[in-house]
């Protein structure tokens, strides 16, 4: 039993239950019918046999011995013949069936002619009943019992057609039940609240329509919450920016003291946190940026130069060539976030472009910093992730850089990969579609 595996799909399970149930019920009624028919037919046959045989024996007994051979042939029936004489000797029959036949013939003749029943050798389905008529001459009844219930040739075909019909109905019912479920799962899988795809079809049986309507309503709610999240963050940031600007300007107006410098640094920190939060909230929504074909070499160079111009050690390694179609602002932000991290933890960064064998372009930012423990590489891309001990002013920040990069990468159809380099340091890569 353990060898039989319960099928994995609901479709197969329901089909199996329905089909097996129907087939067993069908087989049961078929069997009951057969038994009933067998019993009736047997009763009928034995009844005919005992009456006819008893009458025939009585007729032969009354006839003069010379007349008997003329009638013997006429008294025979399909399943028995009368033979004048001893017949063929055989073994005494011991079957219950034979004894029953003999007893009933004896009873019908008023027990005047004791029967001895023998099976003829060689032929299994042949019995011979021996008896002596009242004048002492022997009589043999040659019985060839036919199958009590001949099965019509067309019956198996009817059975096959019925089975096929059963299977078809079961399959159709299962499909009716499971198809909407499949559609629902597919809709949930492709659910993207940012994109207003077509709503799920709310027609069909009432349960299905209800589920579809509930799903559509849930999708609306998710989209609404996401929108609300962005709006709240934007509102907070806007409301914060005015007081931050005021404080910043007041600090600028104040005398040049170490306290003032500290205030300016704190304000810059707050400002960056606010901006990271906004950028993260926005990166979940696809920006309105259009894809353009950009020249990779100048694109990477311009990023490196912008860093070099403010005195940061960022260089481009290897030869970059070719073009890609992408959203340049999003891609620039992703690479800038990688570079910012590298500068934060390692002090310098190296940008490199590799064309993969499958035609994909991979832009990698390498550093020689402490890297990230292998078991935390995945967690590093979650929002608000920070390495232990990095909560200080030098390397602080909201921990949103990689999360923003990942969301933006998804919006341009790419993917972010992190791995530790042999010899120490981190490689952050964006794989372009």
């Amino acid at each position, binding site marked *: 039993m353990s060898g039989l595996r319960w099928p994995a799909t609901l479709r197969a399970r329901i089909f199996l239950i329905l089909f097996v149930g129907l087939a067993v019920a069908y087989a049961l009624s078929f069997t009951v019918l057969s038994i009933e028919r067998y019993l009736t037919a047997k009763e009928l046959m034995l009844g005919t046999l005992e009456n006819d045989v008893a009458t025939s024996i009585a007729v032969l007994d009354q006839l003069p011995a010379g007349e008997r051979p003329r009638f013997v042939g006429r008294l025979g029936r399909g399943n028995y013949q009368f033979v004048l004489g001893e017949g063929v000797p055989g073994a005494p029959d011991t079957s219950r069936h034979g004894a029953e036949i003999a007893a009933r013939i004896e009873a019908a003749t008023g027990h005047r002619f004791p029967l001895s029943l023998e099976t003829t050798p060689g032929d299994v389905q042949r019995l011979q009943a021996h008896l002596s008529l009242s004048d002492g001459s022997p009589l043999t009844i040659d019985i060839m019992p036919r199958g009590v219930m001949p099965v019509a040739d067309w019956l198996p075909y009817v059975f096959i057609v019925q089975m096929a019909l059963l299977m078809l109905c079961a399959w159709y019912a299962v499909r009716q039940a499971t198809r909407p479920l499949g559609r629902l799962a597919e809709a949930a899988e492709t659910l993207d609240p940012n994109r207003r795809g077509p709503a799920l079809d709310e027609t069909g049986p009432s349960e299905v329509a209800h589920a579809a309507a509930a799903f559509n309503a849930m999708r609306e709610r998710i989209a609404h919450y996401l929108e609300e999240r962005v709006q709240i963050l*934007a509102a907070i*940031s*806007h409301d914060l*920016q*005015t007081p*931050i*600007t*005021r*404080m*910043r*300007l*007041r600090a*600028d*107006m104040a005398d040049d003291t170490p306290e003032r410098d500290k205030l*300016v640094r704190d*304000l810059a920190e707050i*400002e960056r946190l606010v*901006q990271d939060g*906004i950028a993260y909230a926005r990166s979940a929504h696809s*920006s*309105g*940026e259009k894809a*353009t*074909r*950009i*020249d990779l070499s*100048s*694109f990477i*160079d*311009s*990023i490196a*130069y*912008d860093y*070099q*111009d*403010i*005195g940061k050690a960022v260089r481009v390694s290897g030869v970059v060539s070719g*073009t890609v179609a992408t959203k*340049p*602002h999003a891609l620039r932000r992703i690479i800038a976030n990688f570079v910012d991290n590298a500068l934060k933890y390692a002090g310098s960064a190296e940008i490199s472009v590799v064309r993969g064998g499958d035609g994909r372009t991979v832009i990698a930012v390498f550093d020689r910093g402490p890297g990230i423990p292998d078991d935390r590489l995945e967690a590093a891309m979650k929002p608000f992730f920070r390495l232990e001990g990095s909560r200080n002013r030098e390397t602080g920040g909201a921990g949103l850089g990689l999360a923003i990069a990942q969301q933006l990468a998804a919006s341009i159809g790419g993917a972010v990969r992190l791995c530790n380099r042999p010899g120490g340091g981190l490689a952050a890569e964006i794989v372009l579609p």
Partner: protein
Amino acid sequence: MENESPSMEHVDHILIVDDDREIRELLSSYLKKNGLRASIAADGRQMRAFLEANTVDLIVLDVMMPGDDGLVLCRELRAGRHKATPILMLTARNDEMDRVLGLEMGADDYLAKPFAARELLARIKAVLRRTRMLPPNLQISEAGRILSFGDWRLDTVGRHLLDREGTAIALSGAEYRLLRVFVDHPQRVLNRDQLLNLTQGRDADLFDRSIDLLVSRLRQRLGDDAREPLYIKTVRSEGYVFSVPIEIVEQR
């Protein structure tokens, strides 16, 4: 030097339009402290009323304002009789869309809030310098325009070059600023001091690349041969000249 004799010199008059009272007052007093004239307006209505009676050299315009926002006001100014007055936009967030929109509406530069007062002052001066050096036939701040020269087109909103096939060639910030100075002053010999002066604007204190290095980088971007340059020619012991005619291509 010029601050000591205001009666003799022209003092630049800046109008600050911002809905936050403290910010406009702080800015105004900072600019005054640094030798500029400053006036304030709280909204579009006050701005219009002020401009009826006064002339200003530059308008600092906040984008996020109740009523008519900065973008609307900017477009209005550009369409009216103040179309030559430089505008510096203060965007409420460091948002790419705001920046692009602002530049498309005709702002000359933008600054994201919060900003350092020093940075604003540097930007104001850079914008004033740039607009004054412009030849009259080349009006700055034409909405959403693309400049064409030789084999190239320059997208002044996206801040990149476009080649014949329409592929975007990115420029670093410094490269863009230098190219912008060249295309704003075609066929004029500019010496290194002038170039440095004009290129400085944003991140003025952080800019430490020599002009010669920048020019060679720019030539590389333009596919220019340093020995026989087509676009940026070297004028011995004087400086550089952008020797290709510029065409304004309107593209929306």
